[in-house]
């Protein structure tokens, strides 16, 4: 989801994209829900990267941080995963909850998605803690804490938020896991992805999409093949120049 995060920007008029970190020169269609115009959807290419990456985790438990009205959630869940979806607006704006439930119901994946109201990383920690509790509410040493096979991070784009999400994702990722960040065009989000870049046990790459996707994986998880739209100049923003060699290309396919 493209967040208009910088709170100083206002959605006026409603059909405009107010954040200058949006890569306007990549003129892929950008979709919004007019009831919530301050936050857009993943582009179709990005949503399909999410879906195709998730297909390798069919039947496994996965996590989404930042669901908005469910565009990414539905793409993720349709890959056949059991999804925990963390979204703070579920408790603060009932309209978001209704829109999200409606989208899940229309796609037929409602029973495979566990909606978790709250801010990450606190809501994620709480989810993990609850997974070790017995039905009586006491810690059961026989129960293993939750481990997620794929984690999609598209939550707080500002300050330390993405880095905090990265840290908690690393702690609760399965041995064979893949982490996906959306909006690497935002420098703070790129810092979250760089957390894995600096960690030797993870491999990383970038998909050149409208808002840039960064992934990290380990174990038997694998990236997917991706070809950026050949009609655009895919120059990376300045804060990603030093990692230009990690952009997924056709040559990367054999790796």
């Amino acid at each position: 989801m493209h967040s208009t995060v910088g709170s100083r920007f206002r959605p006026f008029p409603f059909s405009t994209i107010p954040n200058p970190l949006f890569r306007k020169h990549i003129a892929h269609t950008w979709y919004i829900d007019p009831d919530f115009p301050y936050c857009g959807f993943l582009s179709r290419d990005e949503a399909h990267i999410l879906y195709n990456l998730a297909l390798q985790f069919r039947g496994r438990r996965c996590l989404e941080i930042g669901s908005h009205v469910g565009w990414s959630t539905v793409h993720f869940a349709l890959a056949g995963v059991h999804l925990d979806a963390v979204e703070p607006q579920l408790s603060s704006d009932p309209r978001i909850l209704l829109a999200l439930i409606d989208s899940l119901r229309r796609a037929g994946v409602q029973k495979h998605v566990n909606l978790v109201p709250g801010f990450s990383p606190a809501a994620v920690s709480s989810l993990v803690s609850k997974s070790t509790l017995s039905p009586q509410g006491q810690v059961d040493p026989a129960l293993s804490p939750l481990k997620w096979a794929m984690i999609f991070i598209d939550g707080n784009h500002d300050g330390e938020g993405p880095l905090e999400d990265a840290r908690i994702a690393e702690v609760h990722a399965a041995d064979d896991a893949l982490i996906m960040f959306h909006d690497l065009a935002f420098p703070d989000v790129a810092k979250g992805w760089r957390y894995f870049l600096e960690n030797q046990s993870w491999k990383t790459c970038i998909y050149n999409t409208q808002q840039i996707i960064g992934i990290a994986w380990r174990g038997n998880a694998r990236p997917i093949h991706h070809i950026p739209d050949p009609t655009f100049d895919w120059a990376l923003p300045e804060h990603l120049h030093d990692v230009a060699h990690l952009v997924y290309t056709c040559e990367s396919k054999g790796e």
Partner: protein
Amino acid sequence: MDGTEPTEFDVQDASSFRSGDYVSPELRMVLLDRCFPRMLEASLSYVPFIPPSLLISFSFAFFVSTYVNLTYSIVFMSLPCQRAL
């Protein structure tokens, strides 16, 4: 999963693919527009940002200049009257 969940949508949804849409070749497609009946295409324009401090400064300057102008006008207009007196 119970095996009954939908994993692909009908080709009819492909009609919702617009000229600005792109999906990398070789990716498995799933078009979900019918799950989001309210989704709209947004325009690609920026809104110029005016910092609140600048806005307050301009407002203050406008208020002061208007006040000064009005005061000056009243004084200036009253001068001939005073002279006449």
